[in-house]
């Protein structure tokens, strides 16, 4: 049976109505899940849907339940989250774990390394992007669906949990010594940030390229919630501000707005103040986290039979670019 046949069998069962699958096509949608678009057709009804299925090998090992519940947490919260519909952690008819969510048509995702990806609409996109980020940070976490699956750290432990996690990824997946990122890890461990005023939902990968926009200044859908967790909301802000996502020579954050404008928009939307020392810590951490992801990508590419070029690109080009960013930042900071 083909993937389309299995998907139709699954939908027929869970929707309790005969369902056909049409126009099934794989799309680029992050390297940690296989992503497909398709139409589910039942009589006159046609639903545009997205399937996110676990791959045999992944860039990062993430919990699809957490991703599903993170998306579900922000339905109708004005942050352009899709609608989470079905989750199958055992794989059911599709053999590997997956979930299905609503599809948002009519948008495009910018390439993260495309110069001036938003053209004359960059400012409008930036205002909406950092406003969405601030709204995610503002949302009280206790009653969100995500709280069923994500553990909330104490505010003073946010930094340590994330640093330990991503250091562990590098320890596990590194195949060649990396003195630059190791120096950054030591620096972060020796000089922790002040704790956040409160623990928030952290999207985990909110940056240029991970949302759909309509080409005229509107964000239609925020994607790739697979690294969502609870933690310090500055983590998202710092990740989006990493120089990796800005074209060399462009002073704007991710080609959208200036850093000061980004901070102002986020402050207004989140209702939170930004501690300069904490933000500086999380910005260096963002580059460490990036290097951990790219290290993991290289390992996944090699272990997976070297068939996925996106993993080679992340583990090679992006890792080299991240080393340049990290080494410049460490030199600016100077000796301990």
């Amino acid at each position, binding site marked *: 049976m*083909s*993937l*389309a046949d299995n998907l139709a069998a699954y939908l027929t069962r869970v929707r309790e109505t005969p369902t056909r699958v049409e126009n*099934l*096509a*794989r*799309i*680029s949608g992050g390297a940690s899940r296989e992503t*497909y678009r398709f139409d589910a057709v039942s009589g006159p009804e046609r639903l545009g849907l997205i399937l996110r299925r676990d791959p045999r090998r992944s860039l990062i090992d993430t919990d699809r339940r957490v991703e599903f519940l993170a998306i579900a947490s922000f339905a109708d919260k004005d942050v352009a989250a899709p609608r989470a519909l079905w989750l199958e952690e055992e794989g059911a008819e599709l053999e590997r774990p997956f979930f299905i969510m609503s599809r948002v048509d009519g948008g495009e995702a910018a390439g993260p*390394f495309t110069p001036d990806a938003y053209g004359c609409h960059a400012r409008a996109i930036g205002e909406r992007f950092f406003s969405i980020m601030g709204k995610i940070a503002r949302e009280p976490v206790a009653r969100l669906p995500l709280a069923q699956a994500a553990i909330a750290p104490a505010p003073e432990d946010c930094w340590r949990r994330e640093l330990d996690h991503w250091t562990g990824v590098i320890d596990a997946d590194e*195949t*060649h*010594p*990396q*003195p*630059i990122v*190791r*120096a950054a890890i*030591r620096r972060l461990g020796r000089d922790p940030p002040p704790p956040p005023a409160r623990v928030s939902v952290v999207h985990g990968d909110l940056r240029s390229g991970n949302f759909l926009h309509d080409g005229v200044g509107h964000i239609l859908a925020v994607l790739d919630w697979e690294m969502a967790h609870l933690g310090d909301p500055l983590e998202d802000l710092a990740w989006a501000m990493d120089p990796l996502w800005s074209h060399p020579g462009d002073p704007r954050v991710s080609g959208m707005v200036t850093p000061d404008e980004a901070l102002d928009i986020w402050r207004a939307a989140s209702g939170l103040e930004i501690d300069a020392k904490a933000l500086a810590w999380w910005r260096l951490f963002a580059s460490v986290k990036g290097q951990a992801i790219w*290290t993991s990508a*290289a*390992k996944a*590419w*090699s272990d997976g*039979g*070297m*068939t*996925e*070029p*996106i993993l*080679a*690109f992340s*583990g*090679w*080009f992006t*890792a*080299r*670019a991240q*080393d*340049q960013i*990290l*080494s*410049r930042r*460490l*030199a600016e900071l*100077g*000796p*301990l």
Partner: protein
Amino acid sequence: MSPKLPELLVGLAVSLSSPAPPEAGGDYAAGRLGLVATLLLLASQEAERGAAARIWENAAMAELLGQPLPPLDLAWSALDARNAELRRALIALHISAEDQGDRELQTRILGLYEAMAHARRLELPG
């Protein structure tokens, strides 16, 4: 660094020769081919300057570590193996400099990191 150029070229050949299921055609296949093309262009940069970068980096680290330069083996695998040894020693030296508060040595090491990252740079075409 990983992946290494010889592995990368093998991997790209594997990518191009692996059959894709019918649902992974169209735009997805076109995007994947475009990525393979980009990787090949980056591989040409690595082929041009990758060996020189490794030879320079190994010599620079050996000098800072006060280690003698052994006879040069120009095979990529030998350069990378020596590079891994030197990088491990450099990490240990950096930790020692931090623990002892040797700011001058730390500054030299941080400067070397910048030069190493620059020598290994890859530039996207266009």
